[in-house]
């Protein structure tokens, strides 16, 4: 149905021409779901934009052919392309909130597409739009028709985007990272819905994602892309079981999965023995009946409702829950950026909740409690170089200056595996993984006792996530840190944590040793979280017990340079 031959796309930039896609060929058959997997910068999104002819300014198709049911997509007139877009080929974009017009009712946005393609008239558009909303299983579509995007949850917005994309019964659906940024249960719901609709309507689809596990679960065939080239293609079971290309093997390794330890995420040659953790039973942080209530427009909003837990010295505790469960509020309160409504936070025996957050910046315990932020880009000042960023806590709290400061910064850069030559770069000149390292270096600069990790790998590619998670494991062993690891992904939490707390609606629904909670979840909510994670096909190597792997592990440094 869609046939692409030797497609090359280049971008004209300030530093000359950049080849984003370098000769890609593939076909999509009728009724097939094709997965394109690759990390950021691999050219997977650009390929789809080129097919739709919606490349950014400066981008152009340099060579190759793309034919869709006999139409030459490369040479078709813009008028014809307008008819094809939405009508024949439609797209679901990554960020549903950005893809929807924020000041237009969602129902009208669906009507727009229908009327643009003459699928509805002014009189029956409303009814057809509501039917389209019902097709994507939106309950109470009549009422939701008049909602604005900001009134809907992320998952609901993505359903609206799907409704828009499917409204005109296209033959081919291109989904570009449709679930990135959504909660894991929402991801499952949206993916099940989309793949169900595709099968039902006998459509074809291209699913673009960085998550190999997700692609393997929903696609009939996978393409693995790297640097604008297809390095491997085949059916998911084969790519997972017997990856032929070293890059696909690395991606397969880096995908968190049942039974794998954190070291298993690294390529085989970079694995070293996992360091021994010295978790004690002396409590370091004791949280007692912590609550946080915000004054909302319609009455008080209870973000956190009476939570108690303990983190021992050297322990890593995972805090898991979906967005809105109060886990970020808890981490903000523990790190003393936010004052609790009531309750105690005992750190080393003292109640630190007594010191208001405003004055805690000058408190003597400030250096002991630090945090690694979720979004590495957002947490670095765009006007400060990496060196200035790491220097900030050292200057302010340790009063370091001159040579001592320089030495310490370089020591920290070595510790987190950041090449010294990158220290004088600004954040926009660093990659995602490098920015994460700068953020970690800043957090451990003052030798804290307690580190809060707020989804530190959420914005990273899987292979970088693997490296950063291993770095965190090494740092914990080396510096004797205690972690609170906040995440929505139980499979990532399991890799790092000894103890897991599962939260829902501001309350703890289940807690216990990580192994037990994962193996035998008691609460239905925990069960649904575990079930929602993508289940990639079994790997040949993974069936072997992990003890065997540790025994055979080679003692190689984990601070691999490939991530830098």
């Amino acid at each position, binding site marked *: 149905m869609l046939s692409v031959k030797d497609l090359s796309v280049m971008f004209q930039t300030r530093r000359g021409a950049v080849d984003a896609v370098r000769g890609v060929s593939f076909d999509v058959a009728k009724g097939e779901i094709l997965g394109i997997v690759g990390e950021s910068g*691999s050219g997977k999104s650009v390929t789809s934009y080129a097919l739709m002819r919606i490349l950014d300014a400066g981008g152009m198709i340099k060579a190759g052919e793309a034919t869709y049911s006999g139409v030459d997509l490369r040479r078709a007139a813009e008028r014809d392309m307008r008819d094809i877009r939405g009508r024949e080929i439609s797209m679901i974009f990554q960020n549903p909130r950005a893809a929807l017009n924020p000041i237009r009712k969602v129902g009208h946005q669906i009507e727009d597409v229908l009327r643009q393609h003459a699928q509805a008239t002014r009189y029956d558009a409303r009814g057809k739009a509501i039917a389209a909303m019902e097709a994507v299983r939106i309950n109470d579509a009549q009422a939701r028709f008049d909602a604005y995007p900001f009134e809907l949850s992320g998952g609901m917005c993505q359903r609206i985007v799907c409704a828009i994309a499917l409204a005109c019964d296209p033959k081919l659906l291109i989904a570009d990272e449709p679930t990135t940024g959504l909660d894991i249960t929402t991801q499952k719901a949206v993916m099940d819905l989309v793949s169900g609709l595709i099968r039902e309507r006998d459509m074809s689809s291209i699913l673009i994602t960085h998550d190999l596990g997700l692609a393997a679960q929903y696609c009939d065939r996978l393409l693995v892309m790297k640097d604008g080239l297809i390095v491997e293609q085949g059916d998911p079971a084969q790519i997972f079981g017997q990856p032929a290309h070293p890059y696909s093997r690395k991606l397969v390794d880096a995908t968190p999965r049942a039974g794998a330890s954190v070291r298993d995420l690294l390529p085989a040659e970079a694995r070293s023995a996992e360091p021994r953790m010295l978790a004690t039973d002396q409590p370091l942080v004791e949280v007692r009946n912590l609550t946080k209530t915000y004054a909302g427009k319609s009455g008080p909003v209870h973000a956190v409702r009476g939570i108690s837990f303990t983190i021992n010295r050297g322990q890593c505790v995972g805090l898991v829950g979906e967005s809105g469960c109060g886990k970020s509020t808890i981490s903000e309160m523990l790190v003393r950026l936010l004052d609790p409504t009531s309750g105690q936070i005992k750190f080393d025996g003292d109640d630190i909740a007594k010191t208001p957050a405003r004055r805690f*910046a000058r408190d003597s315990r400030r250096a002991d409690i630090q945090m690694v932020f979720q979004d590495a880009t*957002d947490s670095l000042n765009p006007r400060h170089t990496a060196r200035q960023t790491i220097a*900030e*806590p050292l200057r302010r709290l340790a009063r370091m200056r001159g040579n001592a400061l320089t030495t310490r910064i370089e020591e920290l850069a070595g510790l987190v595996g950041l090449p010294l030559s990158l220290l004088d770069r600004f954040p926009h000149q660093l990659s995602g993984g490098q920015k994460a390292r700068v953020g970690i270096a800043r957090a451990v600069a003052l030798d804290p006792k307690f580190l809060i990790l707020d989804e530190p790998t959420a914005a990273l590619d899987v292979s970088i996530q693997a490296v950063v998670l291993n770095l965190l494991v090494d740092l914990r062993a080396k510096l004797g840190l205690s972690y609170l690891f906040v995440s929505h992904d139980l499979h990532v939490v399991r890799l790092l944590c000894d103890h897991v707390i599962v939260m829902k609606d501001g309350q703890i629904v289940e807690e216990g040793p990580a192994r037990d909670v994962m193996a035998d979840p008691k609460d239905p909510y925990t069960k649904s979280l575990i079930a929602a994670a993508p289940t990639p096909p079994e790997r040949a190597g993974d069936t072997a017990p992990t003890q065997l792997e540790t025994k055979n592990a080679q003692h190689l440094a984990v601070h691999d340079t490939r991530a830098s």
Partner: protein
Amino acid sequence: MSDITPADLPRQKGTLDHILYVLRANPVTLIAFGMFAFLILSALFGPALVPYDPLATNAGNALQPPSWAHWFGTDQIGRDVFSRVIVATRLDLTISVAAVAISFVVGSVLGCIAGYWGGWPDIILNRFLDTIMAFPLFVLAMGIVAALGNSVENIIYATAIINMPFYARLVRAEVNIRRDAGFVRAAKLAGSSDMRVLATQIFPNALPPMMVQVSLNLGWAILNAAGLSFIGLGVSPPTAEWGIMVAEGANFIVSGEWWLAVFPGLWLMFAVFTFNLLGDGLRDIVDPRKRT
């Protein structure tokens, strides 16, 4: 891996290199900086270099058209127009730079307070700014000068007051969107007080849009000062100032002595044009993201 190896990019260059790069990359910026340098040089050295004393009258040589001796001609009491135009640069630039500096500083401080803490200071400030902006700004400036008296300082204060709301609004918006940014929270974890976070982390990020505003405002402030002088509410004669010269020369256009008003007017236009062109270049220079 998708990361870039160190060898791929040249090492971070200094600020001077960056300025040179911006000038080279954009010819308009280069021209604007050349014009700006000319204005600065006229302001600094003009009074020492001009051929005639701008205040010396010579009744026998009045209203002469442009010639080799008097490039821009002479006025109704025989003063050399060229000397007066060049000498006036210093006064006009001083007024606009001082006025913009005052509104920049006051507007930034007010905008930071309102944007960072919000609450009632924010509400009060916003209503106060609305009040100022509700007046026709030139009329407000006229009122201020009329009330305080004709002097250079009062022109500066009046110009500063009518420009201030724009800076306060801009800074407030820029501070507000960064108030809860990750790097701000990280700075607090590093032991920085609110004041320090505001001054070292948030405010510098507002500089790029501020620079565009500054350069547009410099031109606008010159026009404003000249306008006040033109209607007799500014600098008083016989001081050389573009606005007064245009005002005085306007009387003679009808009788054919066009050069009295045209040359100071041209210079005024040149200065405003320079500042308008300067904006984008200044923004590129203070924005680290342009350093690739």
